[in-house]
């Protein structure tokens, strides 16, 4: 194995539930995920698929008392974080693994200056004096494209795009080895989206950070990801390198995602949204979780749970329709 292919993160059979008064939400159901140094893995799926929950469990931040990480392993740089004490977790959060949160309007503390909020992380992990940390925080603001004189200002004085830059600066403050970006551009308007994405790409390369990019925007995936995991109802249905997912699509759900993107160059190709909605996560269907919405489903899909199987060295799919002789998706050969 080449040292460049070093795995910085391994997730094995991760299962997370939210439990309250008798109902159990099965948010994440036995997923596996690997992250290779300096690579970017995209985690794609509709709202409610369990993307944020997966990300939070990587930081040991699944919200108690409802949230429970049931079993599995999360190995970061060789250590299983599920076996760590709170103290050990605090030492790796923000340092070895950091997260950019979904909504920049609520992710910042309204009563602390942005400089303060960045400096906190530096004080914690680099054991420097506050003044030094604040100076560093100001430099970081400059790095993400905000005048450093504004470090003394409060979040309400910034626009949404700038707040997201601040959130990014907080996450990158201690140059973490692993960065989880939870829909970092969803809340921003399109022109700002492109700027923020470009900036993240640049900084990620400069800091040699490995990244998990959570999104439901396949455009973002195409732009930034090396590998893609397609997530649905807490399961990974398809996993592969970018070309596998985009050009050799194998799962009916992935196909559905592509079909639901309007094609602005050709108005004859009609938008085909996936029928139905996400299943109730506290009452998931038996068999394949996608079968109620799947145009290819048959009787077997209702009872038999598909496993994620290798179909090439880089590509995995969880669909038993491939047991049928000659089965292929409508889109796959076009």
């Amino acid at each position, binding site marked *: 194995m080449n040292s460049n292919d070093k795995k910085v993160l391994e997730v094995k059979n991760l299962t997370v539930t939210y439990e309250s008064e008798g109902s159990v939400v099965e948010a994440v159901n036995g997923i596996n995920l690997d992250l290779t140094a300096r690579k970017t893995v995209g985690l794609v799926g509709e709202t409610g698929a369990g993307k944020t929950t997966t990300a939070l469990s990587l930081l040991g931040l699944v919200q108690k008392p409802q949230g429970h990480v049931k079993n599995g392993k999360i190995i970061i740089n060789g250590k299983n974080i599920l076996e760590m004490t709170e103290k050990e977790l605090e030492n790796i*959060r923000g340092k070895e693994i950091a997260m950019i949160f979904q909504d920049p309007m609520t992710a910042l503390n*309204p009563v*602390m200056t942005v400089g303060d909020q960045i400096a906190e992380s530096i004080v914690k*992990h680099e054991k420097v004096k506050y003044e030094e940390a604040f100076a560093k925080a100001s430099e970081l603001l400059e790095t993400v494209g905000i005048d450093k004189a504004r470090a003394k200002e*409060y979040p*309400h004085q910034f626009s949404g795009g700038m707040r997201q830059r601040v959130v990014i600066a907080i996450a990158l403050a201690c140059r973490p080895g692993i960065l989880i970006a939870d829909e970092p551009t969803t809340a921003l308007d399109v022109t700002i989206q492109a700027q923020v994405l470009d900036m993240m790409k640049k900084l990620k390369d400069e800091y040699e950070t490995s990244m998990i990019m959570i999104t439901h925007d396949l455009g973002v995936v195409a732009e930034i990801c090396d590998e893609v995991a397609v997530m649905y109802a807490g399961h990974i249905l398809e996993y592969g390198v970018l070309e596998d997912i985009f050009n050799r699509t194998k799962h009916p759900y992935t196909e559905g995602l592509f079909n639901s993107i309007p094609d602005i160059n050709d108005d004859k190709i009609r938008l085909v949204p996936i029928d139905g909605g996400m299943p109730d996560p506290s009452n998931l269907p038996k068999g394949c979780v996608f079968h109620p919405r799947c145009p290819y489903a048959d009787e077997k899909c209702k009872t038999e749970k598909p496993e994620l199987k290798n179909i090439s060295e880089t590509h995995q799919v969880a669909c038993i329709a491939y047991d049928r002789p000659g089965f292929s998706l409508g889109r796959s050969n076009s």
Partner: protein
Amino acid sequence: MIRYIIRRMLWVIPTVLVVSFLVYVAMDLTPGDPANAVLGDVATDEQYNQVREEMGLNDPIVVRYFRYVVNAVQGDLGTTLYGKRSVWDEVMSRLPYTIYLTLASIVVAVIFSLPLGILAGIRQNTWIDTLASVFSFVGMAIPNFWLGILLIMAFSVHLGWLPSMGVHGFKSIILPAITVGTGLTASLTRTVRAAMLDVIRQDYLRTARAKGLSNRVVILKHALKNAMIPIVTIIGTNMAGLLAGAMVTETVFSWPGIGYLTIKSVLGGDYNLVTGCIIITAVLMSLILLLIDVIYGFVDPRIKAQYVEGR
């Protein structure tokens, strides 16, 4: 900010004018006659009329009120009925005691309600949460005079640890401050708990945790700073109740503040003194509310920004 404070201070003037007019008219309407009170029952009609003329009581009320205000801005609130001392001096000599008691009871309330409310909020539905809510209900239901008497019986009469009346050093403030502060402690505990419950679910606390900050820092720094906003509001809105509570409590403990003086002057029918006491209390109240507003600006930068913009 400074301009804002000055503008707010100017607003105290009309407030006090309205309050003083109402008090003046109310005192005029109450049965009884100052001239009678001065002379006693054995005066002739002639003497009586002469005294009324001397005291200016025969003029229309608007004229009398106007004269009162003109004198008042020069620090002359008239003289007390008995002993003919200056009302201004009398009230001012009591003012520090009332301020002392009010501040002490706020301190008591904050000392008890912060930890209790925080714990109840972060450990929702545990025994400490139940304890806090039982305490809040009881604390809000107990009348001040009854609590005061209870405390005197327990700590002064029975145990003999603390004085029951007057001012004899630091020990004397303890029971009155607890008496006045209990109601505020009760409502503050509920506020702190609710604020904590609200703040604790906010995304920015997750951001703080994701930086690797410890639970203690997350709660005491990030959460509490945000919870301060409703806490300061509740202290502000409870000020009127606090001053009223002080009036009763000062009487129970013979605490030489404005409240005790007010009650005594009402019972003695000392018109000038009652009016003076209430007007000074109104000014005090306005200034405390202003202070709360200023503190507000410091806890919430968004509000401070409004002050600056809204000049």
